[in-house]
């Protein structure tokens, strides 16, 4: 929803299913947002599986908002 134009850095988590749609959208909007892709489908996953997906994506999610050279600790 483009909070970047309000001065707030940010990014998206989206599923692999939407990779192509995202490419088209980025082109149309003229802006390539930071993003992390997670596996698809997820609608049928258990809570434990969702935790697992979140845990595996977490480092990349931090990378959406934190500069590369910065320390997380």
């Amino acid at each position, binding site marked *: 929803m483009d909070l970047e134009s309000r001065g707030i850095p940010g990014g998206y988590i989206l599923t692999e299913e939407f990779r192509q749609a995202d490419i088209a959208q980025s082109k149309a909007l003229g802006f*390539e947002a930071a993003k992390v892709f997670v596996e698809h489908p997820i609608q049928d996953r258990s809570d434990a599986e969702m935790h697992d997906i979140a845990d595996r994506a977490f480092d990349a999610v931090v990378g959406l908002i934190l500069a590369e050279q910065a320390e997380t600790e």
Partner: protein
Amino acid sequence: MSQILLDPTSELQAQARAVLPRLTSLQDKTIGLLDINKPRGKELLDRIQFRFEELGVNVRRYAKPTMTRVAPLETKQQIASECDAVIEALAD
């Protein structure tokens, strides 16, 4: 039809619209997590929140009323005034 504009700059920057600089530290920062209200997004963000809080980061949660519409202006303004960075999930 897309339009062509001529670059008024010295062209030192990359052609794509640049993203903002990222945060240099998470210390004392507030991260907004915006649930756009797609199935399982809440559970994913619950865990992301937990992991951020483990690092001592403040987390605020926001939700779009429906995934089919853009977030209301108030939500955008609220996030912009309360957060240092924002993560949206599950976006499409």
